[in-house]
């Protein structure tokens, strides 16, 4: 399933984050957020290019507000990188593809 983008819900969140065999980048987004829409194609490209090294997942804060609250997300887009089930880095605000790849590179083995 190379390049797949996982849709997270309250029900599958913990299991997905814990059982992934790569770091997982979770994109917290919503339909009404312009910058969120702009980074969607960016992270989908990264999902394809980094398939096998990084899992990309999306969480809709409208539908799954309790997960957003649990991670104190107060601004979207926020992207949180999880490794072995724990948060290792958080990126607040949209950014371009190269900038995001640069931000991610220290965490990808």
């Amino acid at each position: 399933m190379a390049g797949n983008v996982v849709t997270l819900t309250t029900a599958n969140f913990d299991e997905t984050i814990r059982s992934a065999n790569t770091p997982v980048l979770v994109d917290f987004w919503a339909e009404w957020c312009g910058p969120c829409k702009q980074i969607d194609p960016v992270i989908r490209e990264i999902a394809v290019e980094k398939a096998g090294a990084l899992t990309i997942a999306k969480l809709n804060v409208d539908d799954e507000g309790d997960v957003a609250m649990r991670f104190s997300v107060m601004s979207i887009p926020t992207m949180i990188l999880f490794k072995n089930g724990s948060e290792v880095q958080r990126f607040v605000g949209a950014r371009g593809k190269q900038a995001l790849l640069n931000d991610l590179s220290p965490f990808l083995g």
Partner: protein
Amino acid sequence: MTTHPHRKVIIIGSGPAGLTAAVYTARASLAPLVIEGEPSSTSDQPGGQLMLTTEVENFPGFPEGVQGPELMQRMRDQAARFGAEYLTEKATNIDFSSTPKRVWVRDDEYTADAVIVSTGARSLMLNLPDETRLIGHGVSTCATCDGFFFRGREIVVVGGGDSAIEEASFLTKFATKVTIIHRRDKFRASKIMQERAFANPKIVVRWNSQVTRLIGDATLSAVEVTDTVTGAVETLNVGGLFVAIGHRPNTDLFAGVLDMDDTGYLVTQPGSSRTNIAGVFACGDVQDHTYRQAITAAGSGCMAAIDAERWLETAHAGK
């Protein structure tokens, strides 16, 4: 280093000015390349400042109003229909000193006969200590993105123009109380916006006031407000701070090359979009500190496209 096929026209920036220039130049079969910028959560992004707004009520042709991002998507699609191409990157360097004109995106070089500059303006921040650290943790540059997270909280909006009032009104959908902090004793905002704010029971205005300190460890918990007349200092417990204190033109890329006024806006020759360099045209907020509306930006984008088209016909006849 990659060099890309030569173009007749490159447009830098993709707000209403850049995309209108793209519609016109594309319809004139000039196959423009639009270097539209890269995603960000400030107004400096593809689609420009309207990407951070909600309802646009004053763009002609939309009697029911239109969402800012939707309007920009429509303009983008309209230009694409006639052959405009897009590069979702930020121009990083330029050289307009020789022919053809050159624009770089990092190591990639693009050349064109004519360049239309429509890089717009970006939001100013307060430049207070801890402001950057608290962005996304109570300090926001995008009310439409973040208002949702302030349900049931008290927040402050700093500014006195249309965008400050619009943000404050929008934020009352979520917040219990919105305090507008403005350093003067009256608003710059249009009358209709002001009336809306004054009629809204959730909005309180503090005149002659400035935010002088941000307080909060993990997230913002309070702001210190100083009265500019009496000097009195007060702490307001708030969960959120939204900044809308005005804009600065995005002209760093053109420093020393294109003529600017002392606030950094590009200078165009009166009644035209021509800059001091032949074949380089400017439109939209990057050259307009007076009107700054989507419709005036679009109008000036049309001017730039027509100016560029005419310049290409005469200066480049036979090439």
